[in-house]
């Protein structure tokens, strides 16, 4: 066995395995390889002892108590996390549903221009706003010099508007001859 062969074995094998056969015979004869082996053995033994002797600065009782306390705290925290996660998912789902769901169908809006015979446009507008069930759904445009009002409203409200105009703005009715006061 040459020194190169021996050193190649020393590089990777456990030192115990070099105590037999040709390797042992070589170290008995080769002073350099013997010294290198002793250096490695001494340092590895020292390293093993040091490794076995390494101690934590924390007492085991403190580690155990700390671990139990932390584990319990984390368990509670995990319940909160799960709750928050559910809440977040529910919020996202609610937002998505609100966006995806079709908007409620709007009633078709009819538009009609009424030529007034007795009332002024302002009087007619005030009358409509008071009497129509849902005045927010009725849009009234007044054209003062023309004596007309332009009404846009869903069909139900438009029926009400038409009835009001017929009733209070009719030349054959007595109401047309008097100043109409807007009923309360």
């Amino acid at each position, binding site marked *: 066995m040459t020194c190169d062969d021996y050193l190649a074995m020393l590089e990777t094998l456990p030192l115990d395995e070099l105590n037999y056969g040709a390797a042992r015979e070589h170290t008995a004869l080769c002073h350099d390889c013997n010294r*290198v082996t002793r*250096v490695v053995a001494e340092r590895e033994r020292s390293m093993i002892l040091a490794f*076995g002797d390494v101690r*934590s600065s924390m007492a085991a*009782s403190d*580690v155990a108590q*700390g671990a139990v306390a932390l584990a319990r705290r984390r368990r509670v925290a995990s319940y909160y996390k799960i709750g928050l996660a559910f809440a977040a998912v529910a919020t996202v789902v609610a937002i998505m549903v609100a966006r995806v769901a079709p908007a409620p169908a709007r009633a078709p809006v009819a538009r009609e221009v009424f030529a007034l015979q007795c009332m002024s446009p302002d009087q007619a507008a005030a009358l409509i706003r008071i009497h129509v069930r849902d005045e927010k759904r009725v849009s009234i445009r007044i054209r003062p010099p023309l004596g007309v009002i332009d009404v846009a409203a869903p069909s139900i409200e438009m029926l009400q508007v038409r009835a009001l105009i017929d009733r209070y703005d009719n030349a054959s009715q007595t109401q047309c001859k008097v100043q109409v006061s807007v009923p309360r």
Partner: protein
Amino acid sequence: MTGLSFPTTVAPGLIEPLELIARMRHGDDAAFASLVSAYQPRVFRWAMALTGDADEADDITQEVFVRAYRKLGSFRGDGSFEGWLYRITRRAAGRARRMAVPRAVALAHDVYVTDPGARVDRQRAVTLIRTIAETLPMRQREVFMLCDLEGRTPAEAAAMLKMKDVSVRASLFKARASIRRQILATHPSYREQSP
């Protein structure tokens, strides 16, 4: 938290982890304290070899037992408890490494060595352990620690690491080669006398 009744240090070989785990499942925290007492030195050494830093190793040790306490219910007992604990340590060390803020260079005396007479030699060896932690790839570091520093067979290390036996041997050869080169390169007598 109520104080745990704490046993004196117990060697891992003298306790039966499965029995203690069974007691823990019935709410016996003293059983957990016994487990910690038996395994804390070993977990600390593993963490020390994986990180090379005593403070970090302390943090990892604490974290390992927190996780062990929480996950003991999932330990089925089909492998060794030590291997299970080692894998938790490895994951905790990996996580600590990813989140690590560079610390100031650790002082040589921050590791407690119980034998003051051999302090110089030991400090040199501890420095070498740190060097191993810093220079060897993780797999080689683990295999070297389990086989050459703790005396396990490659087959036992393979079971702990969930690796193939042949992969453990290959990593061990590489680790030994690297470490022995470092030993020879840093040993004063060898440096002086070698050509």
